[in-house]
């Protein structure tokens, strides 16, 4: 049976099948890519030896460090209260931006502007 013949006899079935495939493609693609394309898990470097404890507990920092940073920024920039915590104090224990901050940010494709203006040195010389 030629293609023409299929089209003539099963027109509706062909349209339904093709459109279902088109609709399902994105879902199938993302499912397949999550299985097939393995992105490495972010590897966070452990803090420096002089680390005792963080300014907040780990759970809070993991999900809300940006809120904390925004809060201290507002306090300092607008009201002149320089508290205990600053971006500089992160630097004391988490010595490498590349091996700490960037790990998660890169893996979720987040690009931040902090380090365009604030200095966060790399221990091996690159900034």
């Amino acid at each position: 049976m030629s293609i023409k013949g299929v089209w003539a006899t099963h027109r509706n079935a062909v349209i339904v099948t093709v459109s279902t495939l088109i609709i399902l493609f994105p879902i199938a693609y993302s499912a397949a890519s999550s299985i097939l394309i393995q992105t490495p898990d972010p590897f966070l470097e452990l803090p420096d030896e002089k680390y005792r404890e963080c300014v907040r507990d780990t759970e809070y920092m993991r999900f809300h460090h940006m809120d904390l940073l925004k809060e201290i920024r507002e306090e300092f920039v607008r009201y002149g209260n320089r508290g205990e915590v600053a971006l500089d104090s992160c630097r004391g224990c988490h010595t490498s931006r590349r091996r700490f901050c960037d790990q998660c940010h890169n893996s979720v494709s987040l690009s931040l502007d902090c380090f365009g203006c604030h200095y966060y040195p790399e221990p091996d010389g690159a900034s």
Partner: protein
Amino acid sequence: MNRRKFLKASGILLSGTACAPGLPILTGCSSTRADRERVLSKYKWGMVINLEKCRLDCDACMVACRKENNVALHGDKRWDIHWIRKVNVRQKDSPDAAWKPVPLLCNHCEEPPCAQVCPVQATYKRDDGIVIVDHHRCIGCRYCVIACPYNARYFNYKENPDWPNKEYPKRSHGVAESCNFCAHLLDQGKKPACVEACDKINANALCHGDLNDPDSEISRLISSNPVKRLREDLGTEPKVYYIGL
């Protein structure tokens, strides 16, 4: 009660209940704000520039400012940024008159036009009178650059390639900036970098201090000398005073 009255009454009731939870938030904010203000509002920073002591070919203050605050110098006057700059002036109709150097910087106006026009309140007057830009908030609209009658504001058309003072942030491309009296040094109890540099070469032309304190050096200089401010007619109430202008 007819239909109309009923609707009116229920509307009022509803909006009342909707606003009520907001009240503690509003009052809560204002009380913490008042606590914060006390930190800075003791001071009112100002500067006196003694033009008789300022040297003609000296640029110590400009260099020190660039180094402290990472102010960009691209070598092209379209993009160069100056927090403090010097112009030479002389009497208009006497060509033989001596040139007089005049350092110009942000005047930290009491009524700052730059802060009034800023649509996102990125530029604002701190409680100690310093007019400062919150660069995180600046959207780069350049209203303030146009509003400032003293041309004290500059815009970052380009990223600054240099970063001499790593302890102090630089500014990214697309924000406005101007002198902030080295607010980060004042907060540590130090003097602005330009004043420090001027004192170091023993010119002592710049004096920075607290205008609120009647015994401070700056208050004495202002009361014992004929001082002028730039364009006082504009009503911006600058806090930079000039002796011998």
